[in-house]
């Protein structure tokens, strides 16, 4: 008996049966490049500006089709709704039956579990309370630190202001600008002085006679 070989229906129709086992494995086969265009490839040039023809449906046919489809949809929807109601009522009955016939063992286990859950809830409450307290402590500590920082900052600023106020004596303002200019013009700086290791300044171009004695005196 010949095996049923994989062969297209059209080929099977035209060829005699005894040749089928050769045709099933032909020497040259047509192959298909791809089933559909791969994603990302652009449209073919012949299809770029193609405008598909708008389908022209005669008015009477359109009305008839619409009528038929709406009737069909209504029918299907009603059947589905009916089945849904049936299933729901059946499921409801089943659930009732299940609830009634549930294992006593399982009920007992649920009770044990509820007790366990209650214990864990207590532990959790304690933990959350503890965490809340810690958080509050941390917040108050941070606020304190911020206050201290603020106080220090204000003190520093005050110190700066005080120093500036002291220096204010030597500022040149619009009132004493003329005086300051005159002083600057008049002011002569005498660079003829000597300085010893101790930082004592001895003014004058020529060293005084008793400089050494003086130095000794200062020392």
């Amino acid at each position, binding site marked *: 008996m010949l095996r049923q070989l994989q062969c297209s229906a059209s080929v099977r129709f035209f060829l005699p049966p005894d040749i089928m086992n050769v045709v099933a494995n032909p020497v040259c086969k047509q192959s298909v490049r791809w089933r559909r265009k791969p994603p990302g490839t652009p449209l073919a040039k012949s299809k770029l500006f193609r405008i598909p023809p708008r389908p022209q449906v005669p008015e009477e046919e359109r009305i008839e089709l619409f009528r038929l489809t709406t009737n069909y949809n209504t029918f299907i929807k009603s059947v589905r709704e009916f089945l849904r109601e049936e299933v729901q009522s059946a499921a409801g009955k089943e659930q009732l039956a299940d609830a009634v016939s549930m294992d006593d063992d399982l009920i007992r*286990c649920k009770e044990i*579990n509820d007790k366990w859950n209650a214990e864990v809830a207590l532990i959790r409450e304690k933990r959350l309370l503890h965490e809340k307290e810690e958080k509050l402590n941390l917040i108050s500590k941070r606020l304190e630190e911020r206050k201290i920082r603020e106080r220090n900052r204000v003190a520093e600023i005050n110190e700066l202001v005080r120093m500036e106020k002291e220096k204010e004596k030597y500022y040149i303002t619009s009132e004493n600008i003329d005086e300051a200019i005159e002083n600057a013009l008049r002011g002569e700086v005498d660079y003829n002085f000597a300085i010893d290791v101790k930082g004592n300044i001895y003014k004058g171009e020529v060293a005084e006679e008793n400089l050494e004695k003086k130095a000794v005196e200062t020392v």
Partner: protein
Amino acid sequence: MPFMKGPAPIRRTLKYLEAGKVILRDRVKILSVNYNTKGDHHHGARNFVFWHLPQLQYKNPDVQIITFKNMTPTPFIRCFFDSGDEMIIDIDSRTKDEIIDHLVKVVCKSEELLAAEALAKEKKDNPANFGFGCDKHCICDIPGQIPCPAVVPVPSHMRGKNIFAKD
């Protein structure tokens, strides 16, 4: 022989898996564990999942076991039964051993049931059976019996179709 890869690969050894204590009831279909990867009160849950989940799945291959991470403030286990019921087991700040013991008490088969099932299984594992799924594949395997019926056809008076044929 090189070391097994991964953290605590002993969890993947057969001996460890066979030592699992948790054999869930037949009615339990899904078991889900919700826990976080950080947090002291999730430590027990994390350990339970790390150490005992492989054992659990090995012993209950037909139960869907799934973990949800970082979705909950407190860890819990949820068991779904075939009736649509569910059981929530709170495991906040519990150690893995406590969790295992509680599971054994609440959702596992009792020891008597396990013993009865083991007994029933032994009856099925009769070494005298032969054929598909048995140790001996054919009657010819057993010493002192007939040669293989695939080679030497069984005499007609021994064939079932002749013995039980209604004339």
